């Protein structure tokens, strides 16, 4: 595998700088956001590179679990931060974390033990990238779905209450919203599966090929990952929407938008 020098990365970074410079008039806030995000990418990835290096050197379930917990905590924060209106209190953070934990962690465990079957199952070379890919995609789907759920409930509060007034159940009152919200969460995954290999060459497979793996083996891994991601994002979105809808109403079926905070 051809390795990259710092100079190679600097050349790629020039592209980001060029974009920030070009767009500075059209989107005044963009250059700063771009630079911060680019810096975060460089720093975070360097850091995780070092962490993985240490982790690979001494394989231990405890360290793998610890890193997984940190990843989940950060993903929970990201889900929360991407919401325009979010649930107040611990719920704003808890719904995302719980949904991701239930879906991503269960599926990652299942994949490691049953599908990959490496010994030990928590071998960090497998466990961490697998969980990372699952978490990343599940996070996007859940964030999208929760954001749309709270936003739609806010915008359509009069219609929701009109249905409650007619004696409809809370599930009936949000049935239309729920459908759209779930759809918005899983559509990116469906699109990714539909375009895989034809329009886009997925990142993991590309990485394996770049690293010298036989293409057919890389493809098999990619297919597995795509299915796992679909399950993770799908079940994660289902859980998050279910919890979110439950939190939107109280025990007397009242729409409780006072539980949302605006950001």
């Amino acid at each position, binding site marked *: 595998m051809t390795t990259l020098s710092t100079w190679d990365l600097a050349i790629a970074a020039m592209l980001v700088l060029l974009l920030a410079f070009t767009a500075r008039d059209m989107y005044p806030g963009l250059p700063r956001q771009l630079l911060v995000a680019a810096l975060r990418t460089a720093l975070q990835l360097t850091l995780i590179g070092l962490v993985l290096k240490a982790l690979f050197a001494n394989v231990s379930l405890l360290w793998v679990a610890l890193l997984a917990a940190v990843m989940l905590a950060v993903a929970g924060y990201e889900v929360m931060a991407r919401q325009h209106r979010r649930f107040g209190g611990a719920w704003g953070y808890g719904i995302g974390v719980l949904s991701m934990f239930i879906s991503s962690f269960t599926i990652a465990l299942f994949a490691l033990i049953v599908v990959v079957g490496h010994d030990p199952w928590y071998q960090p070379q497998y466990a961490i990238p697998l969980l990372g890919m699952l978490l990343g995609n599940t996070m996007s789907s859940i964030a999208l779905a929760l954001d749309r759920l709270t936003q739609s409930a806010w915008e359509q509060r*009069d*219609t929701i*209450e*009109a*249905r*409650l*007034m*007619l*004696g*409809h*159940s809370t599930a009936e009152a949000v049935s*239309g919203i729920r459908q759209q919200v779930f759809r918005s969460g899983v559509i990116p995954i469906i699109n990714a599966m539909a375009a895989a290999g034809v329009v886009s060459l997925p990142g993991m497979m590309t990485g394996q090929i770049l690293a010298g793996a036989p293409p057919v083996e890389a493809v098999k891994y990619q297919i597995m990952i795509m299915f796992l991601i679909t399950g993770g994002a799908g079940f994660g979105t289902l859980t998050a929407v279910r919890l979110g809808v439950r939190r939107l109403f*109280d025990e*007397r*079926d*009242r*729409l409780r938008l006072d539980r949302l905070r605006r950001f």
Partner: protein
Amino acid sequence: MFQVDSLCCVGRPPVSFSLQAGELVCLSGPSGCGKTRLLRALIDLDPCEGTVTLNGARRESLPAALWRRRVALLPAESRWWAATVGEHFADPGAAPFDRLGLDPQAAGLAVERLSSGERQRLALLRVLAGRPEVLLLDEPTANLDAASIERVESLISQYLADSGAACLWVSHDREQRRRLCARSLAMTAEGALA
């Protein structure tokens, strides 16, 4: 039959009154005094202290959705979630559209092409289709012409006579209150019932 005892929402004085079977009582009061909030509290859509009973059954003793089918509120502005009128009715064929001067085939109409007066009348039929035992009407004739007002008044009077349901009718029109209600409740600007 419908009994409200010291119903007390946050920051408002307690309210007590009762409605007899078949009775039509009007409610008036200056804008913003809390009439709509009172109606919302009665159907348990806003959290409030106090007891509300229907034929002796407290609202807490029934599932919220069931309570709201028996004690139904017609809000001042109607909301529609499906494309056609009929989709909002469990049995569109049974709704007496013609009684309110509407197209007998109104079930097939697209909601977005209706006028506000048509929506208001259709919303009333939609509420009545649930056969509520207590009817809470928030200015049901505010946007209607004289002929429609007469039809609405006669339809509701007949519904109350047939079903024995009670009705609380919010109206700003003194003539209408005189015409309809033997008994009237007046709400003060602070939200107390006089």
